[in-house]
């Protein structure tokens, strides 16, 4: 159910005032995307169902904290979903290497509510990612999209955990410097 950024922001504001119809609109407009984030990080639908419930309970409780001036509503919602999924992923048993694809496939663009400014942010970030060594870029994206820990990455690429940490920190510092913010 595609809605514009403005409509979604307005629905969150109404949710903050206790409007359950607006809350339902937020759910219908965003649950597909947020479920995708949570399922990919957790790799299990049973846990993802529980986490998605927690995500929207938190959205209901904290909708008043969303500030449209400091970011898009979908980014705010995705941050909540990622954090809860990562928290849950860390509570379950470590995942085996086989649970992840050998080759990282970048997700396609499914954001109909994108704006020029956001698209520019996206292009800038990807230009900076392209400035990293290819394996470091894959490392960063693998962690972001699949929520892998340093230990899981270490097992995947056969390098010491300390090396993975160094690579990640240097890559992220390079990204920060490239973005200049």
């Amino acid at each position, binding site marked *: 159910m595609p809605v514009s950024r403005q409509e979604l922001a307005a629905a969150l504001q109404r*949710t*903050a*005032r*206790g409007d359950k119809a607006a*809350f*339902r609109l937020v*759910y219908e407009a965003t*649950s*597909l995307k947020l*479920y*995708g*984030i949570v*399922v990919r990080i957790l790799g299990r639908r*049973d846990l*993802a*169902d*529980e986490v*998605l*419930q927690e995500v*929207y*309970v938190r959205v209901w*409780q*904290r909708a*008043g904290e969303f500030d449209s001036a400091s*970011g898009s509503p*979908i980014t705010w919602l995705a*941050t909540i979903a990622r954090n*809860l999924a990562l928290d849950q992923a*860390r*509570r*379950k*048993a470590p995942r085996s290497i086989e649970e992840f694809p050998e080759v990282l496939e*970048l*997700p396609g*663009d*499914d*954001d109909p509510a*994108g704006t020029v400014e*956001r698209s520019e*942010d*996206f292009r*800038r*970030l*990807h230009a900076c990612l392209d400035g990293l060594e290819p394996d470091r870029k894959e490392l*960063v*994206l693998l*962690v*972001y*999209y699949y929520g*892998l*820990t*340093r*230990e899981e*990455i270490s097992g995947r690429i056969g390098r010491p955990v300390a090396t993975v*940490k160094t690579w*990640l920190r240097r890559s*992220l*510092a390079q990204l*920060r410097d490239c973005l200049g*913010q």
Partner: protein
Amino acid sequence: MTEEEDIDGLAAEYVLGSLDAAERTAVDVRRRTDAALEAAIAAWQRRLAPLGERDHAGDLPPPQLFEAIAARIAALPGPQSVRGGEVVAFPGRRRRLAVAVSAGALAACLAVAAYWLTHGSRVPHGVQRTQLAQSVCGGRYKDFWVNFDRSSYGRMSAEQLAGLNRMALRAYDACEAGDEQDAKALFDRLKRMTF
């Protein structure tokens, strides 16, 4: 490595998602009182947010999920912005300790929470329901501290903080034991408290 670089690297990895359970919990606790870390996390969330623009939508969530969520929120007092306040006076209010002592007590409370959240779910396979209950109850316990007004810490005595945490742990215990009525009453009462 300077302290500033260390904080920025920690924040970057926290947002990226590469920290293990103990490190994530430690950051969750530390960011409440470390403004530099909180600011660094916010900056990294802004920098990496565009990656989410290409986060593929997956399968539809189960059709009954919204009904389950609706039932959950029906039992809640309402969004924060419309939640009323209730002033609660704790005994022993006369002896106010220094802010540092209160911060220490808070750190101890949060360390307990951190331990529960990272170690509490280490149960054998085959008891997934228990894990999920711990996860949900741990989430409610953590929610309470996340939503708690940070500006109160400096005003509260160590005894008040300890009392508050004892009540939060009772709510967690009731939740995990399946006593939803007691858990809800305690969590609701905790949410109404102001200092």
